[in-house]
């Protein structure tokens, strides 16, 4: 665990440092320069933070789903603790992703929110998280709460992916990589980022993931202790 924490700090520190300080130039001369993408300019730096945050929020949801499923199978309350901890962190990172995303949108496209496919999807994810916690707070008994919120999370997890099929066809968008965008699909997926950006990006991705695991671990332990104290009182 400790090595994970240290690694996470190092990776994120590197990402922050490289992401912000490496200069941009129209025609990169060396590996210490990022290409200046027309239209994005310096704002492209946010990609190192925005995308990992979005990725972690989805990861949080998937982990929450997994533990919810395990709870339904085994009825062990520890799984529910893990599920809700992951969901809480996922929601936090979802908000971060939305905030960084809309800041970027303001500078790159002029307005904070545009309802383009990817923005809408992350918003729906936020609504799912919100609904999950609303459901949990409306249920009294521990066991019923664990059971029903796990079922809801799985239902939402099954219907959300439909957005992937709907969005590109139904609505064009401003988000890089949507239909009609001349620069084509996600730059990352098609490795249109040059190698040096790619490296910084991936360190950010891994760093954030490790950070998430660290935070999850702490949160699970905190909630478990709270729960133990609650049981002792009974």
């Amino acid at each position, binding site marked *: 665990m400790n090595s994970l924490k240290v690694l996470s700090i190092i990776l994120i520190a590197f990402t922050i440092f490289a992401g912000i300080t490496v200069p941009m130039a129209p025609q990169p001369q060396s590996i210490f320069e990022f290409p200046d993408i027309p239209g994005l300019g310096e704002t492209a730096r946010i990609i190192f933070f925005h995308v990992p945050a979005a990725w972690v929020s989805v990861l949080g949801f998937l982990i929450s789903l997994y533990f919810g499923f395990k709870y339904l199978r085994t009825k062990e309350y520890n799984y529910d603790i893990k599920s809700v901890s992951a969901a809480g962190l996922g929601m936090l990172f979802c908000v971060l992703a939305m905030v960084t995303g809309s800041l970027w949108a303001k500078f790159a496209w002029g307005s904070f929110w545009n309802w383009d496919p990817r923005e809408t999807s992350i918003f729906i994810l936020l*609504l799912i998280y919100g*609904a999950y916690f609303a*459901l949990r707070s409306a249920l*009294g008994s521990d066991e*019923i709460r664990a059971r*029903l919120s796990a079922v809801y999370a*799985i*239902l939402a997890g099954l*219907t959300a992916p*439909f957005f992937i099929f709907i969005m590109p066809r139904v609505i064009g968008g401003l988000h890089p990589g949507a239909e009609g965008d001349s620069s084509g699909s996600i730059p990352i997926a098609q490795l249109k980022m040059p190698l040096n950006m790619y490296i910084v990006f991936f360190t950010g991705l891994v760093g954030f993931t490790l950070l998430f695991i660290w935070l999850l671990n702490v949160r699970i332990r905190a909630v478990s202790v709270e729960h133990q104290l609650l049981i002792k009182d009974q």
Partner: protein
Amino acid sequence: MNYLFAIWAIVAKDVRSELRLRYALNALLMFVVTSLAVIIIAFQDSELNPEILSALFWIVIFFTAMSGLSRIFVSEEERGTILVLQLVASPSAVYFGKLIFNCGLTLFLSSAVTLLYVIVFPTFVIQSLVIFICTVFLGSLGFASASTMIAAIIAKAQAKSTLYTVLAFPVLAPLLITVIYATALSIQGDIWSNSIPQFQIMIGYLCVVVGFSFLMFDYVWKD
């Protein structure tokens, strides 16, 4: 065969109960009429283009469904009849019975809204009738299936009606967007092959939600 009879018997019970008490039907009809009244007043002289008409159509259906479809489980919970139902029926029979009832209710609702729309809005002329009918049919079934499962989930919770809408929206959103788009296409008179992707999504959605609910209903229903 027997199992189907049990499902039918549960549907029959709910229909008989509904006809006697009329809670859901009244709520739904009142809601539809009220929403339409607001829309008519708001859009008095404006030209309503296909996209707007289509969106309004499904918004009315969505919120009306939210006000009425949870009754199917909430009324059982509130009256304490869940125990007797657990005693006499298997969980999946209960699920399918309630699902079929809600499907019937939603189809009735969407037919009513369609009729009222045709009467009230002269610009609501559907050029591709086949696309429209298929969309409304599949859309209603999709709405009913997701709503039924969520109704079962919130039956034991506090603040049921707001919670119901909060939970249902993220789950229904993909369906909502798809049917709005497909309905707009049908008003514009688009060709069948253009709406096939939409139908694939609607059918896929229906299969996923019903399949999931069938597998998971036991966890929600049994204590």
